[in-house]
């Protein structure tokens, strides 16, 4: 499991998970799950286009995920965001279908772009992933105050001069960056699971934002590590484990929160017991 050919896998997963955990925290807070699904899925068309033109997949993904983010932002000016997202997504996918009809791309390559190929990460992929990851985290740190404010209380943010629309576009671009870096590794569809399940679980455990973000990173890391280990042992696709573990972590978080609520009125003696149970 820790053989030399697996080292890159562990390294890349350890970079991807914190980014997904941090960006995902705001995805859940802002209710942006649909864009977070649409941008990676639509960016897949960029990979197909890159294959057609013979340029780097990462470039194709980056261009299309940025186009997707801007497209959602542009269409969203005059329509509900979910409608704008749906239309931008189908347009990108339609382009992807047109590109694919022109290439002789192998079926397994499409599969790995969609569902990830963590077990075949090369050392040359490591640096761009790390750089984009650092850029995402840096952007979130810079945006942290206005982003939190406009996510939690949009009216107050507007009153203080934080433009909701501008923040929305900036945030979508961060999601696009996170997408471009993670798609070749964990796949267009699974980065979404990782951006939703762990942060949602973390938010049901605590209402303090920084703690929730840290928890979200930890849960995302554990999810990815367990998924890789399980995938290595059972030889099933890593995407299956990431997807189901993310959903299970959310279910566990909700269950734990409900259990705590129902015992909130009970004696304080129950609490240490509960902590022990959860550990």
């Amino acid at each position, binding site marked *: 499991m820790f053989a030399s050919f697996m080292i890159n896998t562990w390294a890349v997963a350890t970079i991807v998970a914190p980014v997904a955990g941090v960006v995902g925290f705001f995805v859940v807070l802002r209710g942006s799950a649909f864009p977070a699904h649409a941008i990676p899925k639509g960016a897949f068309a960029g990979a197909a286009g890159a294959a057609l033109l013979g340029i780097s997949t990462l470039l194709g993904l980056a261009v299309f995920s940025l186009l997707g983010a801007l497209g959602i932002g542009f269409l969203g000016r005059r329509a509900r965001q979910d409608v704008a997202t749906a239309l931008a997504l189908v347009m990108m996918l339609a382009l992807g*279908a047109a590109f694919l009809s022109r290439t002789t791309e192998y079926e397994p390559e499409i599969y790995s772009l969609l569902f990830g190929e963590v077990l075949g990460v090369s050392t040359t992929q490591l640096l761009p992933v790390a750089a984009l990851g650092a850029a995402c985290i840096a952007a979130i740190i810079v945006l942290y105050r206005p982003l939190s404010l406009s996510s939690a209380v949009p009216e107050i943010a507007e009153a203080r001069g934080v433009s909701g629309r501008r923040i929305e576009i900036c945030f979508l671009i961060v999601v696009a960056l996170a997408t471009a870096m993670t798609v070749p590794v964990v796949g267009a569809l699974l980065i979404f699971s990782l951006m939703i399940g762990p942060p949602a679980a973390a938010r049901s455990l605590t209402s303090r934002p920084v703690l929730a973000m840290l928890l979200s990173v930890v849960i995302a890391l554990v999810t990815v590590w367990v998924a890789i280990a399980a995938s290595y042992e059972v030889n099933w696709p890593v995407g299956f484990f990431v997807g189901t573990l993310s959903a299970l972590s959310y279910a566990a978080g909700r269950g734990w929160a409900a259990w705590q609520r129902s015992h909130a009125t009970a004696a304080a003696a129950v609490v240490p017991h509960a902590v022990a149970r959860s550990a």
Partner: protein
Amino acid sequence: MHQLLTWIVEPGFLASAPVRTAALIGGIVAVVSAIAGVFTVMRGQSFAGHALGDVAAAGGSGALLIGLTPLTGFLGLGIIGAGTMDLIGVQRVRGRDLATGIVLGAAIGLTALFLYLDTTASATTGATQQVLFGSIFTTTSTTIPVITAFSLLATGVIAVIWRPLLLATVSPDIAAARGVPVRLVGVAYLVTLAIAVALSSLTIGAILSTALLIGPAATALRLTRRTGTALLAACVTGVAATWAGILLAYDSYYWGAAREGLPVSFFIVAVIFTAYLLAGCRKAARPRDAAPADDAARDQAAA
């Protein structure tokens, strides 16, 4: 004149059996999607409408594995997905996005596994592409009765719950005050949506399923604020876009020297997208501007 006509419609278009089947199935699915779509757009459930297609597709790839028909898998998991979304909290606007996301994430994980097992267990090549894109030209005419039956069922349910659904969509509070079981209506609608989306993503593919659900409805709601008119306009837009797309895809085979057509899904989406943008121009030209929901509310109050 004849030359112009043959230039628009390449020879053999109307005589081709796959084209006629595609036009018929595409037309039926476009109508059902448009009807369900108007409520989906008004209720702000586009994400669920898109996600249910992916969830249903997971059922499709799972059904291949245990030897059930894809239709059973699509419908089964679509309905289970809708139920789970409701359980997690799709009925509250704030929880809606998250509930859909969690169900979708889990379904994608399952799809990854099922597709992997499908391709290793048997030589089901093209399964990934089929799930992601689908194709209107690969549907056979034998599926028409089943599709028609389920389409009628979905349309029938919407017709039956029409009044309470409209009221619950426009103003859940007033609906609740008037004794409308808002949550029950919501579940009934979501299950209907799941059936419609499962059918469309099975027959015409995931891209077109979402495109035909959201595109024509959003276009229609930009043009008119009356729900009834919007429904009609959405149906017309959906069917017209489908047929125009099929025609263009057929013609595109003759465009280049290479004799390679472009996929039909590309053309249908392009037509719908253009229609949506054009409808936006018209709306921008009119100063009177209000949310479509306002007019629906007035309809409801007048009734």
